[in-house]
């Protein structure tokens, strides 16, 4: 077994740290942006006309039915054909946000559907407007129900940031695989990479569970 040491890691710690920050940044940006896109899409589905609903449906089906890598390539490599030249980071954030947005939209749609129809009907009979029904009746009840799905989606997106390395976004995977190929210490760097993601995902899972118990206790 060839020599296995972690000196390569120690020597490049600042670079790795920067990569980690970038990963966190991409993750945060795509989750927030994606959630907003998803919520807007779901709301449009609820109150929009047939045309809007059809457009949203097409968006969701397309972005959930194709691989993220292809969407990323389409935006980053295909964009310039239409005058849309984005930096890797910009392309990464936009692409991941659009991808996540489709999944967020489905989660929110499921949330709306899970609120009992009777609650909505009762509110309508009492004279509440569509917006009031959504904000005062549906969204609060939805939240506890969809929280597990939301936290799961957040974790999925954290892992998806690794794919951004393929278009040279300087996040963790890009940095560590770069070090690996420069020093030929492939296995060491990849194992460290695994450990980093494992730590990130485990932390995110605990945070999600904590949030779920907090919310359920608040509502119970």
């Amino acid at each position, binding site marked *: 077994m060839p020599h296995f040491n972690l000196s390569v890691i120690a020597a490049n710690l600042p670079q790795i740290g920067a990569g980690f920050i970038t990963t966190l940044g991409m993750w945060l940006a795509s989750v927030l942006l994606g959630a907003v896109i998803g919520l807007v899409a779901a709301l449009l589905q609820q109150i929009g006309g047939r045309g809007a609903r059809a457009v949203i449906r097409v968006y969701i089906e397309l972005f959930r*039915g194709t691989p993220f*890598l*292809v969407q990323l*390539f389409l935006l980053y490599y295909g964009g310039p054909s239409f005058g849309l030249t984005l930096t890797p980071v910009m392309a990464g954030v936009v692409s991941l946000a659009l991808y996540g947005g489709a999944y967020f939209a489905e989660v929110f749609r499921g949330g709306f559907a899970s609120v009992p129809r009777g609650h909505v009907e009762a509110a309508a009979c009492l004279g509440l407007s569509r917006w009031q029904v959504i904000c005062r009746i549906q969204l609060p009840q939805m939240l506890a129900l969809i929280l597990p799905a939301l936290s799961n989606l957040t974790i999925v997106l954290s892992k998806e940031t690794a794919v951004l390395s*393929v278009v040279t976004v300087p996040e963790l995977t890009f940095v560590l695989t770069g070090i690996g190929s420069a020093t030929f210490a492939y296995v060491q760097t990849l194992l460290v990479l*695994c450990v980093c*993601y494992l730590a990130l995902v485990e932390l995110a899972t605990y945070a999600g569970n904590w949030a779920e118990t907090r919310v359920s206790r608040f509502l119970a």
Partner: protein
Amino acid sequence: MFSLAAFCDALPLLLRASVMTLVVSAAGLLIGFFVALLVCAARLSTKRAWRIAGTVYVRVFRGVPLLVQLLLVYYLLPFVGINAPPLVAAISAVSLCAAAYVAEILRGGFVTLPPGQSEAAVMLGLSPMDRLWRVQIPQVMRSTLPSLVNEMVLLIKASSLISVVGVAEVTRTAQNIAAGTYQPFEAYVAAGLIYFVICGALALFAHSAERRLAAA
């Protein structure tokens, strides 16, 4: 603007490459299924050591991105002296990753099986082996079928990542076409369309399977 000619030229090449996509995904699911049986058995075992081992497997293979797992297997094989083509690394990585997800699907199936089913078997004197193979497994297979088909859809999309280690499936072929024709947009739209059609067909199959199961 959008060149229909470039799009149409790309399609046949990508269709041929889709065979590789399907082969890798199917092989990944099949091998992953058998590994998943072992992992699921470990997770449901009465012995604590097995349960911990199973849980660790699932947590690790679901916690690390598939791309990283793929690269690790790709570089690990020569590191330990195995010289295999990239396809082997690709299928291995995809199988090991899929196994973690399938194990959880199967475990869910076992856990949601009504206990009364097994109790009736116990009262009739059926042995644990007979209970497992005649009563529990047939029902778990039926109830998890939609989730397993859904997992296949996820695998087909995930298989796009194996382009990174050079396997000539749809995404890699699209990259080659884009590099050759300088028409990246048309190439990737064509690739996206092919994935969309394959995944859509499978999703419809999952829907009808689910409906037939609910009716039964």
